[in-house]
Structures are given as C-alpha cells and as structure tokens.
C-alpha cells in the first residue's frame, strides 16, 4: 500500500513539475510597492509642421463617384445623373429559347438608392424625371447635356412619397423610345432630374460600387418570358476603355459649383474636392523618438451653404506616391487606405466650427527612418460622401490667421528603460 502511495505521489509531483513548464509570470498588483519607478515618460509638443496645404477640386474624377448625386436645391444646387446603356439587347429569353424583341411590354429603370436615415428623409414628395440625353456632340460636357433635359426628350417620370424611399426605386419609361433603339441597334442614354418642393438630395448606385441602375425590358406578356436586364455600359470615348468604362454612369452639376478661397481648406462640396497637406517634421522627432500620438489639429469654420447639420465623415488618407509624382492633382489620385496606418475618421457637420483633431500616428510612424525622398510627409483629407452629397467641411489653411492655422501635436517617448535594475 505504501509503495502505491509513494508511486502515486511521485507521479503527481512529476506531472506538476512538467505542467509548470507552462509559465504564468504575470504580476504587477504589488506595484508601486515593489516596482516603484517604471512609467515611461511622455513628451508632448505642438508644431506648425504643415508647409503646404491646398484644396484640390474635381476629385473624384467624373464617373468615379461611389454614388451619383441627384440633388435639387433651387438656385443653390442643381445636379443631374447620367446613365449610359450603349448596348441594348435585341432578344429575350423564353423557356430557354431566345426570341427577337419586336414588342416591349414595359421598360423599367431599377434605381438602387442609399436609403435616407430617419433624420435625413425628405419632408416632401419628390419626382424623378428621365430624359433622353443621347447626343452626337461632346457627350460629357455639362453645358451640352443640360440642354437635353427638355420636353421633346422626356422619357418618363414618377413621384415618390418620402416613406417609399427604401433601397430601390422603379421608374417606367417610354417603351416606344426603348423599342425604337432596340430595333435600330442604337444606344440609350438617360438623364435623371429630381424635383421637389423642398431641397432634395438622392444618392443613386453606380457600376463603381456594384450597384448600377439597370434597365429591365419585358418584351412579352407571357409570364414565361424573362425580362432582359440591361446594365450600364459606355462605348465612348472609343478605344479608350479605361475612360469609357467610368462613364457608364456619372453626375453633372448644372448649378451651384463653388470654389474655395486660399485661406480655407475645403473637403467634399460641389464639385467635390480634397485637401492636400505636406509636413515638415523635425527629424529628431520622427527618427529618434517613439511617437505615440500624432494629431493633425485643424480649425473648422462653418460652411452655411447646404446641409448645415448633416454630418459626414472626413477621412485622413495616406498618399502612396513617391516624390516622382509632383503634380498635386495626380498625387491625390494616389490617396488611399493604408492598412498599417490605422487612420481614423471624424464625423463633422458643415455648419459646425471649432478645433478638430485627426489622429494620424500610424501614418507618422511609417515615416520613421525613411527619407522624404522615399516616404514624403504628405496626407490627404477626403469626404466619405465625396461626389455623393453636397456637404462641405471647411478648415482654415496656413494662409489664415496664425491662431487658426493647421498644427501638428506630437506625443512621444524619448527614452525607454535601459533594462538595468
């Protein structure tokens, strides 16, 4: 019996000893009694580090909007949305067989929209009118397209109650007009106009985000016939696919385009714009310290033009281009997400004002030990609804009075413990 007890005891102790190979070293509750002097020193400095700042209008380029801005605010703002169906089907499918279209029972534009949240839902019914905007003239020029929204080119319209603005709108258009083009093998290009007794902003899906407006053609009353669904496609400009593909759907601004004065940095707005910033940070901060916080401090000034209280997200973006690219507009095309930068956005309303802090520590850290010839100290600001909503957020630039100019606050650590006890 004693032998068995001894064997079991030995085995138990050996098991405990081997199990203890998995360490649990975590301590600290006895601090500061036993580990009294261990905090890291944080230093904080605010510098006028912005050496170049400018507003860059026209971004995103035409056709690159995530959603089309269909807006009507009287004399303040008027936009149109253009959808191109440059290839129309000439047959439809019925019981797995293709039949030639000789008649159209219905032609419906299916329009995906961003559902307005309860606070931004229109207060009055709205009417969307559709026009034939096909032309042989310069087909992206606003002045040309604007003249095509006239009664003899009217294709259809529909009025929607505010509560009916969910995720998709269905708008019938003239079947004769569509049939004529189907039979002739020509293209259909439509323009949207919105009307309401009150100001209205509608965001329409695009091919860019995989939510295009589609044309559903029902060519037979037979329920076995499947509708032909036509997606936007642009065949012009010819032989330049990277340009023509973006022009499948786009927005034009008829009224309300603004510019930004040099004392202001504008983000969003109409036409949409971004902000470019270049920094000069002392190398002893970037290279010889550990930066734990970097805040771009911008003073917002109210923009009372439109959507005063509708918040939009403003994103700081890394510009992923070397100094080889010198043109600011081109540089802004390289503004993109930086996975390791962990840049955070701010939600701001155009009508508000005050000091705003963009946290960019992740980006600033990527500049460590990198010369400016390799990693330029640049940053872009972009609206999350650029090209989609008219909201514009304005900040004072470096040409504004000293007290409200952009600054950079850096919190850093110069010395971490030597490790010596």
């Amino acid at each position, binding site marked *: 019996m004693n032998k068995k007890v001894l064997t079991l005891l030995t085995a138990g102790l050996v098991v405990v*000893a081997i199990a*203890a190979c998995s360490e649990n*070293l975590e*301590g600290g509750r006895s601090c500061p009694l*036993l580990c009294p002097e261990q905090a890291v020193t944080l*230093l904080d400095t605010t510098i006028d580090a912005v050496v170049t700042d400018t507003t860059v209008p026209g971004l995103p380029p035409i056709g690159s909007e995530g959603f089309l801005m269909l807006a009507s605010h009287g004399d303040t703002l008027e936009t149109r949305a253009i959808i191109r169906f440059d290839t129309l089907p000439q047959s439809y499918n019925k019981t797995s067989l293709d039949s030639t279209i000789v008649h159209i029972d219905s032609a419906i534009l299916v329009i995906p929209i961003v559902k307005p949240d309860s606070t931004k839902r229109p207060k009055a019914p709205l009417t969307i009118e559709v026009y034939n905007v096909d032309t042989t003239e310069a087909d992206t020029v606003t002045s040309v397209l604007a003249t095509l929204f006239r009664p003899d080119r009217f294709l259809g319209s529909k009025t929607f109650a505010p509560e009916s603005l969910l995720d998709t709108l269905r708008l019938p258009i003239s079947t004769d007009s569509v049939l004529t083009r189907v039979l002739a093998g020509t293209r259909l290009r439509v323009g949207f106009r919105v009307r309401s007794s009150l100001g209205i902003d509608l965001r329409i899906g695009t091919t860019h985000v995989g939510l295009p407006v589609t044309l559903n053609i029902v060519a037979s009353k037979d329920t076995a016939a499947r509708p032909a669904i036509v997606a936007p496609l642009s065949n012009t400009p010819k032989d330049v696919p990277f340009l023509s593909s973006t022009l499948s759907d786009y927005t034009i601004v008829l009224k309300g385009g603004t510019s930004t004065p040099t004392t202001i940095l504008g983000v969003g707005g109409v036409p949409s714009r971004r902000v470019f910033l270049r920094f000069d*940070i002392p190398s002893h901060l970037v290279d010889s310290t550990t930066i734990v916080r970097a805040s771009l401090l911008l003073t917002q000034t109210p923009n009372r033009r439109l959507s005063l209280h509708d918040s939009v997200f403003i994103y700081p973006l890394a510009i992923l281009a070397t100094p080889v690219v010198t043109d600011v507009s081109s540089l802004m095309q390289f503004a993109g997400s930086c996975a390791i930068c962990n840049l*955070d956005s701010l939600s701001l309303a155009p009508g508000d004002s005050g000091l705003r802090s963009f946290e960019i*520590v992740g980006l600033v850290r990527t500049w460590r030990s990198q010369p400016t010839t390799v990693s330029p100290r640049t940053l872009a600001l972009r609206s999350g609804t650029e090209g989609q909503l008219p909201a514009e957020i304005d900040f004072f630039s470096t040409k504004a009075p000293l007290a409200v100019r952009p600054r950079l606050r850096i919190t850093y650590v110069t010395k971490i413990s030597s490790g010596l006890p």
Partner: protein
Amino acid sequence: MMMMMTTTRSARLERTVRGWIVGGVLFTAVPVAMSAQANLSSQGFGYPPGQFSARAQGTGGAIAELDPLSPVNPATLTLLGTRTLFFQMEPEFRTVTTSAGTERTTTARYPVVFGAIPFGSQLVFSLGSSTLLDRTSSTTFLTTQHLSATDSVAMTTKFHVDGAMNDVRLAVAWTPATWLRVGVGAHAIAGHNLISVTQSFADSARFAAFSEARVLSFDGGAVSAGVELVSKNVLAAFSARRGGSMHLSVEDTSLTTANVPDRFGASIAFVGIANSTISVRTSHDNWSALGTLGEPGLKGVDAWDSSVGAEIAGPKFQDRIIFLRGGFRTRTLPFQAAGSDVKENSLTGGFGTTLAQGRVIADLAVIHANRSAAIGASEQAWTISLGISVRP
C-alpha cells in the same frame, strides 16, 4: 513611490524657410529606471536558485558542499565514479501578498545541467551550467500621465524580463588520498536578460501602443576551489569562489562593470549511520559586488546562507533504497526590495532512488519558502525540484 511631476515648457522658434514653428512642449517627467519585478525574490538581477541539485535541495542545501551533482564544491566530483549526465527542472509556484492583494505566478527553471567524465580512478572532469541569478518575470501596471491641465492618458505598461545570469563551470577533481579530495573550477559567467517594454493606452483611438526590446548580455569570469576531508563518521568540506571582473553589455556596447561575487562555504556532516548523512552548511556570498552592474542605487546584500538537513536511508522499494531527505534553510536574498533586505526561510523535503539498474538516479525535492521584508510585503513559494542523472 511613484513620482509624477508635470512641467510645461513652451518654446517658439522662428518660422524657418520650411515654415515650422515649435509651438510648445509639455512633458511629464517620470523616472525610467526599471525595477520591474513585482515580487520580493527576484529583485535586482534576480533570484538565486542556489546552484543546488535536487538531492541537495531536499536537505535544504545542507549537503551541497558534499554533493557532486551540486556545482558548488569541485572536490566532490571525485564521487562520480563513472560518466554522468545530469539535468534538473525546478518550477516555482509563487504567491506574493501586499496590501494591494495577492497574486500567483509560476516560473519554470532549469537550474542545473552538467556532465562529468572520469579519467582513471583519481581524476574527474566536469562541464556544466547552473543558474546564478534568474530574473524572469513579467510586470503589468496601470498609470495615468497628465500631458497638460486638460489632457491626460491612462497607460498600461508591461515589463517582461526573460533570462538569467548563468555560471558555466569547467572543473576537475582529484583524490590524492583516501581521506582527501580536492578540486578546482574555472567559471564563465554568461547569459542574458531579454527586456521588453510594451506600452498601451486606454485611448487606443488617439494613442498608438509600442513595444521595445533589448538584450542585456553578461560576461565575466571566476575561479573556484574546494576540498573534502573524509573520515569514518564525519565528512567536512570547504569551497570558495573568487570572482573576476564582469561586464554588462548591449550588443557591442559595454554599459556597466562589476565583479562576480565571491563566495565561500563549508559543510560538516555526520555519516556514522549507514547510508545516511546529517549535515549543516553555511556559506557567504558577496552579492554587493554586483551593485555597480545596475543603475546607481542598486544595492546587493552580502549575505549568509545556512542550512541543516539530513538524508537517511528509508524503505526499500523493489530492492532499491529510497533515500528520504529533509532540511531547513535560512538566507538573505541578494537584492533589496524597496530598500529593505529580503529574508528567506525554507522547509524542504524529498526523496531519491535509483532506476534502470542503477544507471539513472532520480531525486525529487519539495521546497516551501517564506520570504519577507520590512515593507509590508510577503511571499510564499512552493518549488518542485526534479533531478535526473544518467550514467550511460
């Protein structure tokens, strides 16, 4: 005591051609020296496991000067009549109690490994490594730093130290007479401490965490010598280590210099009962010699380490004798905690036997240590010491 001093310094530089201006500097100054170990035992450069084998641990260390598996007295190596490999593991389960509460940790240690080979009947060579000071620990604590009158941030700091200062010994022992054994050893003090500091913030949206690591390397040397006197009923042994210079460096840069601590110790044992040993031991370590190896203010404590213990032949188990051991040990640990000496008292017990027809010797010891200092903190530890020696 946490010292937090907030100072505001504003400076403005003239706008340069590039156009930046230093607008202001606010800083919070907090010392950055690191006494990261949140316990009593591994302050300073760490905890000394004792350089004892599991067998010696079972007697509280009382037979360490007589034990060939403990790399203390090189003269005892002559007891190893054949080639021997020895390995020891020694996990410690520690409980630290302060007014802030109690926390438990587990530390895995492998304090002794060595091999020995005899040449002839009178000469034995040995090469081994043992842990002189183990600093492995991890400490996490919360603080708040005030960056300005309106700006502060809560921080979590984690200091992790991994590594030890090791004693690599090359020793030779000789038996000039049946009543006398002598030995000498050359020691290289080596090893490293991997220090990592991780700083994270409660406000992770504005502040980014960071971590930094560095490796502190030790190199130094020492020599040791020992004698063992043998009579029918009494064994007496004495050994001493003389420390040479020692350096602490980071990469190729030497940061500090000190001396390897001197040590001397003696055991006397009664062996008049068959297969049994009753022994007392005392030794003195000159730990203060390490003081200059750390930051100014680090204080090593010259300390005595005394123990009494016995190993007796117990019951037989399948024709194998089970050796039962017990002991008591008292010592002062090498480094102060918050300016106060740390005392350790241990009660030990254990047993050992042979396996595999005598080719394997297994020893197991259990140690319960109480550590205390006059600062309102106490520590208890259970340590299991398991040693395996193999004679291939």
